[in-house]
């Protein structure tokens, strides 16, 4: 279960990410950010410890 961020926490995270966003903009962002975080959290229930990410680096191709 992912805890929702408060506006203060979002402001702090934005500053750490070098994002200079006014408070009214952060307030508009907050619901979407919390929805995105909850959604990402739900995906953790899907993956077993054996599940690897879908993309792999290929040494022969170099990407």
């Amino acid at each position, binding site marked *: 279960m992912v805890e929702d961020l408060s506006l203060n926490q979002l402001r702090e995270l*934005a500053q750490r990410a070098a994002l200079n*966003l006014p408070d009214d903009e952060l307030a508009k962002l907050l619901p979407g950010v919390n929805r995105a975080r909850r*959604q*990402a959290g739900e995906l953790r229930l*899907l993956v077993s410890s054996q599940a690897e990410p879908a993309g792999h680096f290929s040494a022969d191709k170099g990407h």
Partner: protein
Amino acid sequence: MDISELCYLTIGEAAAGLRRKQFSAVEIADACLDRIEANDSKLHSFITLTADLALEQARQAEKELRSGIDRGLLHGIPIALKDLYATKGIRTTCHSAVLEHWIPDHDATTVTKLREAGTILLGKLGMHEFAFGGPSIDAPFPAVRNPWNTAHIPGGSSSGSGAALAAGFCFGALGSDTGGSIRTPSSHCGIVGIKPTYGRCSRAGVIPLSWSLDHTGPMARSVADCAIMLQVLAGYDANDNASANVAVPNFQSSMKDGIKGMRIGVPRKNWFDENLGIDPQTEAVFNQAVKVLESLGAIIVDIDGKPFSLARKANQTILTCEAYSYHEKTYQETPLKFGSSVRRRMLEGAFLSAADYLTAQRARAVLNEQIRANFTNVDVFAVPGAARPPEPFDAMDPNEQNMRPSFTNPFNLTGLPAISVPSGFTEGNLPAGLQIVAPAFEETICFRVAYAYEQSTEWHTKRPVIS
């Protein structure tokens, strides 16, 4: 033949008419430009019109065809491009103030292929800003409107491509699709669009939204026209890291073989009723389309929709993280240069963690296995092109799309080919689409099923009255 009839020919019909000298390439280009001039002020489908170039290319095509140089079915055919395909010497804006004045010094690989096939470029088309968010109300260019009812959205993000085709402004267009951006406007505008298999068509020279989910592909007014365009566009490109080095088949080879005995999976259970569920009118149109497929001899098989439903969560997580990564520097320096719609959606990626992103990529592997396992039991999946009819601009709720099932996201996450074909109308004469999804690199099966459906219905022959 009057202008309207000429502009609504299929690519196949126009190609035949050019070779029979019923009309010339210049006459077709002129007809399109006249129609755009008369009607596009109501739709705003074009950001940049390249009329002089179009007429020059049309004269060249006419000269070549007359002298026996035939570059194939697209020779002399007017097309247009979503404004995220780089075009050498022609402004490429992504419908954004960020790139408002950018003039690339190169063409995207797909643009080069279309030019070498002798197409006529009419111009660059409006879209959702950077192919994300919703219609851009505060971008430097007006939002594209739906030709079937200009009070409604045309769907996105390839909104100009969908609107221009439905309005008879061009014969084919390029879209791009990261979560449904070819198939949603195709469904909402009553035209055909295919998102080919991931890696089938080059992304080189296309401004990315999300590297691992971006697909390029054609949109047109018939299934056969999409196949004609894909034949030119498909193929390995060393300039695209995700390009697949696989053989390109003749996409029309089995198109007319019918679908008798074909097994079509419908993943209704655990998906169609997710949250607010599918709009009832849209579901009724879909159910009718499934009955048509059954009447053509297909066997309808219920399959579990749960992994399809979960796919949206992984798709959105990956998409927002990759999109933010691409645009991070601009967000840090000039965040308000982005329009409000794309800004709020894309900035979500700044607040997801590396673990969130990698978990989504791990979930992608799990869900791919679960979804593709269905192909041991069925040949294709059939799902609606969109979960609801196109909304009116004045009642748009950006959060609502997350409350309904996404019928497009799962096929970006899995990379499977998916085509949307017109399947009827909801209240107010607003189009709906049927989506057919096939195993990887089996676009021929998409075309075969979509063609059988298209030819047994009349939806693709309907035209909007632009007012």
